[in-house]
């Protein structure tokens, strides 16, 4: 569609003390397009959008809306001019209903002061219908799924008559299916004439949904390209500034003895629902076993049981010839020799307020030489950190920096360093690259393969099929708490995808 761009950024520059977060960035957004803003973590995407949303004042450059220079001094200015933003972390009030959240700050009222709940619900329903959203206006936000909450955020922007919608890493919190639903919604919004800026660092999403793609690297715009003709490899190179290997090369596995044997494991979750229903498998030395599956099919409970964080109701876990029943996490790490990269590095993997040295010592503080008879020697903690941080290429902080000061990729390297340095026989890698950018993903993948070649057994649990294909030597598919299929890595994506939804010969026979 021609005419002046809906939005144009000219030479936007934003400096923070010591750094230039945005360096003369030009960007234009056309009516009815999805424009992806692609870049690694820290490339300046969010800064730029915060400038556009009136949260930051830019130092140089100008913002044009429909060809007219505007000053956006606050988010309210931006909202008034039809810019809506959906943040990565939702700004919703959980105890209020969907409709109440949407109309908040601009409520339909009765007699001027009372919230007209029926009118609010009606307007939300009408809005949802226009854009073909499925949502119950009267549901409490606390009760709906993350994907639905995101739709509420989008509706909130639409309710305030936004015609430019900024989505900040919208798929980071979504399951793959929810992401597909979101893309469907974005396509509808596009046909309705909305202009959408889609911030991401995931290349496949960009190719799936974007019309044009602008790539930022270290505060500068590298290029804007059309989706046609764009490839993952080409975009990644723009993003990182060098060629990126998506499939880290790996040798043919040389599996050895079985290091981990799981026999008929049954595990219940906190609500007493049986999430793992009779799972059996083995992990051998020198192989990566990938567990594929849609989220919430028992993978988390399986990992918890293996790590001693949750007791299995029945079944056995054997490591190094010893069977562990109702083992504690300490027994699994210290005696069984299990390393565990947890799926949520903020919840479990790291203590964000602890220094890197302390985080690296989370298992070893209780052993010599970190401590003797209960006395701790911080010097040894720091010595270890001084050795491991360079070895694992952790950047952005020293041994005494708090873990919270690092970027996600570097935080994950700290977790990796801690778990691998203990020389585990078996390493569980649960979603090891969740939320990381391509550079960090490549690092983690290389490292896992290197550890495999060292003779460790690696159990990879991932929701990303790409990751499973890139790393696994054998693929197990979990569905509703059971391993429903096993494949070699040359299985087609289609077959694997079907198995993940429970459609296999075995399941069909039942």
């Amino acid at each position, binding site marked *: 569609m021609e005419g002046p761009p809906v939005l144009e950024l000219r030479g936007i520059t934003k400096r*923070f003390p*010591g*750094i*230039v*977060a945005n360096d003369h960035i030009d960007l234009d957004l056309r009516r009815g397009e999805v424009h992806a803003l692609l870049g*690694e*973590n*820290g490339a*300046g995407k*969010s*800064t730029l959008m*915060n400038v556009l949303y009136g949260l*930051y004042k830019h130092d140089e450059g100008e913002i044009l809306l429909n060809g007219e220079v505007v000053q956006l001094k606050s988010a309210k200015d931006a909202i008034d001019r039809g810019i809506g933003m959906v943040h*990565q972390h939702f700004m919703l009030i959980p105890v209020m209903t969907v409709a109440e959240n949407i109309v908040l700050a601009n409520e339909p009222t009765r007699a001027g002061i009372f919230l007209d709940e029926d009118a609010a619900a009606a307007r939300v329903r009408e809005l949802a219908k226009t854009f073909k959203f499925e949502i119950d206006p009267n549901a409490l936000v606390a009760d709906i799924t993350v994907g639905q909450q995101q739709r509420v955020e989008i509706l909130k922007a639409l309710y305030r008559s936004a015609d430019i919608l900024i989505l900040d890493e919208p798929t980071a919190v979504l399951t793959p299916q929810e992401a597909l639903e979101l893309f469907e919604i974005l396509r509808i919004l596009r046909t309705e004439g909305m202009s959408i800026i889609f911030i991401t660092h995931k290349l496949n999403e960009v190719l799936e949904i974007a019309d044009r793609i602008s790539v930022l690297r*270290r*505060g500068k715009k590298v290029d804007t390209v059309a989706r046609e003709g764009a490839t993952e490899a080409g975009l990644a190179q723009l993003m*990182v*500034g*060098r060629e990126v290997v998506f499939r880290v090369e790996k040798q043919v596995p040389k599996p050895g003895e079985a290091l981990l044997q799981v026999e008929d494991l049954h595990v219940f979750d906190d609500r007493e629902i049986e999430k793992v229903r009779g799972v059996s498998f083995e992990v051998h030395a020198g192989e990566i076993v990938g567990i594929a599956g849609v989220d919430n099919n028992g993978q988390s409970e399986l990992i918890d049981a293996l*790590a001693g*964080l949750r007791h299995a109701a029945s079944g056995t876990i054997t490591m190094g010839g010893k069977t562990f029943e109702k083992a*504690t*996490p*300490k027994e699994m*790490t*210290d005696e069984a020799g299990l390393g*565990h990269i*947890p799926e949520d590095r903020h*919840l*479990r*993997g*790291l*203590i*964000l*307020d*602890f220094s890197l040295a*302390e985080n690296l*010592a*989370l298992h070893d*503080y209780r052993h010599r030489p970190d*401590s003797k008879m*209960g*006395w*701790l020697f*911080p010097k040894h903690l720091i010595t270890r950190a001084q050795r491991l941080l360079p070895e694992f290429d952790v950047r*952005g*902080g020293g041994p*005494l*920096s*708090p873990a*919270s*000061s*690092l*970027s*996600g*990729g*570097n935080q994950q390297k700290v977790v990796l360093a801690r778990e691998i340095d203990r020389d585990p026989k078996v390493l569980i890698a649960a979603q090891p690259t969740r939320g990381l*950018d391509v*550079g*960090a993903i490549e690092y983690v993948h290389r490292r896992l393969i290197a550890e495999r070649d060292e003779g460790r057994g690696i159990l990879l649990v991932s929701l990303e099929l790409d990751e499973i294909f890139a790393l696994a030597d054998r693929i197990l598919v979990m569905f509703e708490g059971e391993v429903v299929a096993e494949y070699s890595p040359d299985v087609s994506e289609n077959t694997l995808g079907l198995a993940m939804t429970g459609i296999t010969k075995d399941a069909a026979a039942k």
Partner: protein
Amino acid sequence: MSDAAAPPPDSGVPPVAQTGPDDKKRFNSQGLIVSIITTTIAFLVGGLVVLATGHDPFGTYRAIFNGTGVTWLIPGYGDRAASATNFQQTLLETTPLILCGLAVAFAFRCGMFNIGGQGQYFAGSYAALIFGSYWGGIPGPAHIVLCIALAIVAGAAWGGIAGFLKATTGAHEVISTIMLNWIAIWIGTYFFGLQGPFVSSQYSPISNTIVGNVHLPVFWGDPVLQGLHIGFFIAIGALVVFWAILNRTTLGFEVRAVGFNPEAARYSGINVKRNYFLAMAISGAFAGLAGGIDILGWQFQIATPDILVSSVGFLGIAVALLGRNSAIGVFFAALLFGALTVGTSSRQLDPSVFDPQLAGNLTLIIQGLVVLFVGADLLVLSIWKSRKKLSFRRKASET
């Protein structure tokens, strides 16, 4: 971005992370600033209260300051003898405040709010009193050590109950410690009240008196006039112990890990429940020690009516909050509150400057304001450094 500051092209490192190593320092200095600001605001508001009563706030504060005896530290200033006596009183008040502050701070570091300092303090003082009022035959030093040890054990047991309940049943420590406070109060009222097992006479509800050789030696001032006893050094020693446990033992490592992130602690093999119990027991030990050395140092007996009005354990909460749960912070906060209590007591304050009864309330007002402001430290921070902090957060959110 300038080329000099640019990370190598192949890194995913966000530029903001380059400030890493200084972060810890910055957080600490922020804590100090908050404490100083809150104290200053509390004193300003207190000054307004003085003004509202028709007195001169500057004169009042000066009189309070002189009354604390802190002036003794300034060579050649004022009446040396009087300021020495006053300073002894200030340090005498500071001693249990340090320990009760530590009792709250230690639990805080394990992620728990110990409201039970008062009850744990009583447990310690009852133990010291009961065992100090019998067995006059034991040699003094051994008897003192025994009484102090029993006071510590009693406090630890009292705190440990709350920790045990939290670990086993999930009972919230705030609720259980409040109830344990009342249990301790009524046990004391029974023990030392009329017809109680440890009452001294059938006519007045006052306990037996501890035997003479179990009194803590006074090293500064007149023992008859409540000079400063060696319990002060025990409290200073406790500060060191507190710091050492937290920073130099595996137990402290676990306690802090649980305090910051119990789930990550559990993942790394730490027994979270055991730490809840131990942290509460250690907290209780500090408060119990406070009760013990108060009895052995200057109280020597317990008057039942005093049990209900004692508030040293609760003041420990204010001390820990203001001291930001660190050893050094607790020391200065305890000194501040100890000095305030002495400076505004009717013994020190000239009634012509400010009515001592009002002054006592002034202390309470300042204490209350400090707790309120420190509790609302986020608010203070956001007023003081809103822009800086926000921009830091936004930058951080980009990583």
